[in-house]
């Protein structure tokens, strides 16, 4: 009886563990091993282990620019998502029950639409002949269309739109645990609204900001559809480069090496950010 009960959790975990092994762990291992083989043009994957792919990435400035652009973009998207998502979550948590339900649908709406459809929507808005430029030209604010398609700014705008809901949800979960009386207490001690938000509310939702930030950062760094459609061929990021190496140049080993480095950097950034923030704000994480 005792052994039966203690075995139950393992049985319940089995399907999940098997799924993870089959679809996450195994492909990662395959990817890692693939990245350690040479690419021979006209032949394909060579036979002897090598670090040539990594050496090429370390050497070639072309890749440095792409990596810098990818993580710069991911960092910027994360910062903007925090700036938009935290106040949004706070306002949501203050709404009456009915308005909250409506607002959550609006906030989560973008997540219900296919990433490709949504991104093409942005392409329509951002193009030289797009809605935004037409309005700007008509209003006389600009004399020439503002270039937004195929630019860094365009990709950042579209990614923020896609990823803000993750930040809102994470921060909102944190806000649920906040004792509203702490805000009243601060107010009674003489703090104005802004001071209450900055000194009392924000530090207490740091765990939510952190988890939201990690999700947004990882998704932004590995986003494919949005940079591919809005950024196009000219504004390459690591995921689109991987795609091109695999399917354009058929250089699978280099593509795999790029993928491995992407995963490693995302992991490294996530873990160190986690450590740093948890140490700085350890009292709210207990």
């Amino acid at each position, binding site marked *: 009886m005792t052994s039966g009960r203690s075995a139950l959790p393992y049985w319940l975990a089995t399907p999940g563990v098997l799924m993870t092994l089959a679809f996450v762990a195994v492909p990662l291992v395959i990817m890692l091993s693939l990245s350690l083989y040479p690419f021979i043009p006209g032949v394909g994957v060579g036979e002897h282990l090598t670090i040539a792919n990594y050496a090429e990435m370390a050497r070639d400035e072309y890749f440095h620019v792409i990596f810098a652009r990818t993580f710069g973009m991911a960092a910027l998207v994360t910062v903007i998502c925090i700036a938009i998502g935290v106040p949004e979550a706070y306002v949501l948590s203050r709404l009456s029950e009915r308005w909250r339900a409506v607002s959550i649908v609006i906030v989560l709406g973008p997540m219900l639409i296919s990433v490709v459809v949504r991104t093409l929507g942005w392409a329509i808005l951002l193009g030289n002949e797009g809605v935004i430029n037409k309005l700007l030209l008509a209003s006389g604010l600009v004399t020439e269309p503002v270039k937004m398609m195929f630019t860094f700014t365009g990709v950042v705008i579209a990614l923020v739109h896609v990823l803000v809901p993750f930040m809102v949800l994470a921060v909102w979960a944190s806000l649920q645990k906040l*004792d509203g*009386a*702490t805000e*009243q*207490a*601060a*107010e*009674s*001690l*003489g*703090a*104005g609204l802004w*001071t209450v938000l900055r*000194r*009392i509310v924000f*530090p*207490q939702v*740091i765990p939510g900001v952190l988890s939201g930030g990690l999700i947004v950062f990882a998704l932004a760094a590995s986003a494919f559809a949005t940079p591919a459609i809005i950024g196009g061929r000219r504004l390459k990021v690591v995921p689109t480069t991987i795609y091109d190496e695999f399917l354009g140049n058929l250089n699978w080993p280099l593509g795999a090496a790029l993928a491995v480095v992407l995963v490693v950097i995302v992991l490294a950034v996530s873990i160190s950010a986690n450590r740093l923030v948890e140490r700085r*704000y350890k*009292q*709210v994480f*207990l």
Partner: protein
Amino acid sequence: MSFLELKGLSKRYDDTVVVAASDLSVAKGEFVCLLGPSGCGKTTTLQMVAGFVQPTSGRILLDGKDITNVKPNKRGLGIVFQSYALFPHMTVADNVAFGLEMRGVPSGERSKRVASTLELVHLGPMAGRYPRELSGGQRQRVALARALAIQPPVLLLDEPMGALDAKLREEMQIELRALQHRVGVTTIMVTHDQAEAMTLADRVVLMNKGCIEQIGRPFEMYERPNGRFSSTFLGKANVFSATRAQAGPTVNVLGYRLPTSDTARVGALEYIVRPEKIEFTSDSAALVKGRVSARAFLGNHWLFQIETPLGAMQVSHANTGLPKAEEGDEVGLHWAPENARLVPRTEEAA
């Protein structure tokens, strides 16, 4: 004379009256308890004084100034919340310093005042701890210190003992009382615990269903409750619906003629006798007879439940030796006319 004054203060949500027009004046340095069952409007009243709830009508005057429309952060009142509402991400010292910081007190003086306030609540050595690392009683004292550090004109306490266990609560009550005397701050406390209100308050404001039922000093309110609710909420009481057609030394309760020293009042009345005022007696002197249906030993006194023709009655006797009756005993009950209180019957009590 009166330092804090509530004039016709009321709060209505849609059609629900949470607090009916209430008047209260509190003298400087006085300790007033708002006492009542949950939902009686006591917390809403406190929240209106604090400024977190906007009154539907009425005014709040502090030291002669109308503060009804002043924002909470400009009222400068010290508030201790039921959950304490300590800032979890700040140390004890930072919590206490927060109000001073908001007032722009320079950091040198600030740390001096934080230290002295923490001394006041015996938490000097805890200055560097975080709220999470403290016990319930310590957290409560931090909350108190944080509210007192700004030297508020009025201290508001919302069920401050609610989260403490019984023994600690008693200790904190005595400490709070002593502290309030020492600091001399005008204090309003909300509680549903009548013993706590009587222990702490100079005056008790008894509330029920959004109305103030009675205001008085604890002893006076206990001895002279103005109705069924007051008599049963503040201590235990035997209350009977009585009638009297014309002035005389007795009233009629279910055909029994019970004595009273209040000979004038007539009409529909409530007849109130406290359990500790009732004696067991021999048959001839008994006002009413009954059978002991239950007996409980409560340490310092015995509590008897007596089944009588008037209904179940409670009698309590100080523990001065063996109990004077056993369960199942037939006993006669007697009390002096001056120990029975007569008040007009209100419709609600009927």
